[in-house]
């Protein structure tokens, strides 16, 4: 199908962008890479009267900010995939990227777009959650910082106001003996995952779990942190917990697991436990060798 009619705006900078969004109100939609939005327009699932394009606002690239790494919201997934700075500072982000779409999609798709679109089955929201990243935003009321933990509020909905735009993502350092892994299962390579897990873990000198982040995707209406499992794991010895047990803990008590013709909720939950176990195993292995 052809997309519905809309007016097109390509403001010259981010301040003009948020001003315009404030003027246009609910009828406007921000477009960055468009790799999620344009299909929605083509299927007429979304029909904004105005598209506000971020192509001239910059906000690209990755830069060290103290011990953290800032990634501009308009940085494409392809740039992230090739970035030595990202690979060194945020290995989980680098490892998640090749799983997104296909390379043609990653040439246009942006990190800010992936997060703001907030698809519960997408990789970047889970990476941001697992690592405890923060999203920097701008609106006419000024900038603010939103922790990833409180950013995803419902199905395809976020904490962003209609006149607010993600400008960058700050990934905090994970010093110490850390390991990171992402695992997902999809029926066809690069398709949306039926279930996936992103894991970050820090192992203390004595072999106990110092810190961990386990994020689940495709397993609920929003990307989730398996907080109860994390709390249970912290302080335990890595030798004392079986990978499968971590998987079971992470999916225990999940509500609203999606079900469709690709898989029932029960099946997804089972796959979820398996991908968590695999990601946990690889992350712990890496941390122990660090």
């Amino acid at each position, binding site marked *: *199908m*052809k*997309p*519905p*009619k*809309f*007016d*097109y705006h*390509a403001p010259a900078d981010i301040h003009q962008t948020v001003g315009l969004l404030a003027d246009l109100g609910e009828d406007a939609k921000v*477009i960055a890479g*468009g*790799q999620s939005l*344009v*299909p929605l*327009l*083509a*299927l007429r699932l979304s029909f904004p009267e105005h*598209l506000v*394009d971020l*192509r001239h606002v910059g906000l690209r690239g990755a830069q060290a900010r103290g011990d953290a790494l800032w990634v501009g919201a308009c940085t494409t997934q*392809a740039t992230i995939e090739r970035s030595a700075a990202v690979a060194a500072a945020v290995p989980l982000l680098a490892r998640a990227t090749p799983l997104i*779409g*296909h*390379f*043609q*999609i990653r*040439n*246009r798709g942006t990190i800010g777009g992936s997060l703001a679109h907030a698809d519960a089955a997408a990789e970047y929201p889970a990476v941001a959650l697992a690592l405890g990243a923060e999203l920097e935003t701008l609106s006419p009321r000024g900038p603010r910082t939103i922790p990833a933990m409180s950013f995803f509020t419902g199905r395809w909905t976020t904490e962003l106001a209609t006149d607010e735009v993600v400008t960058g993502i700050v990934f905090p350092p994970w010093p110490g003996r850390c390991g990171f892994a992402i695992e997902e299962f999809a029926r*066809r*390579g*690069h398709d949306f995952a039926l279930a996936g897990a992103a894991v970050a873990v820090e192992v203390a000198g004595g072999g106990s779990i110092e810190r961990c982040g386990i994020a689940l995707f495709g397993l609920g209406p929003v990307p989730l942190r398996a907080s109860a499992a994390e709390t249970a794991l912290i302080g335990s010895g890595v030798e004392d917990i079986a990978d499968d047990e971590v998987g079971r803990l992470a999916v225990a008590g999940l509500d609203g697991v999606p079900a469709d013709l690709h898989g029932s909720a029960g099946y997804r939950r089972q796959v979820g436990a398996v991908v968590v176990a695999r990601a946990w195993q690889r992350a712990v292995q890496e941390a122990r060798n660090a």
Partner: protein
Amino acid sequence: MLDVEIRLRVNGSPRRHTVPPRLTLADYLRERCQLTGTHLGCEHGACGACTVLLDGAAVRACLMFAVQADGCEVTTVEGIAAPDGGLSRVQAALQEHHGLQCGFCTPGFVISATAFLRDTPNPTEEQIRDALSGNLCRCTGYQGIVKAVRAAAQAVAEQTR
């Protein structure tokens, strides 16, 4: 809804048009530029038939609007062969290895494989299959296509040796 004036280069030629914002780059290339080599299968980013090069990067022409290509350089399948019509290495390899039957998906495969081999001159079998996973073929089957891309990679490797 206001039309927008755009200027871009398509296969090296400057173009200037006034387009409605909702016109996709794919429809623009086909209907305004009469470059019908860019095919449209699904029109929502799943099949890859509309793949073109945008400033050298392979992208889905159905997943962006012509207005977003303002100021860019677009290369379609018409711009891949030599000006005298001589086939590119990827095109010749597809012909030689039975990489096409009906040919509908072929322009997308040609563009994707061309960009892939430029960036990955010595690909592994796994990398080839991964790179082709964003293009769907419904009649030829993928064996011949994978074989053709492998052969084209070898041809490049031999020439640069």
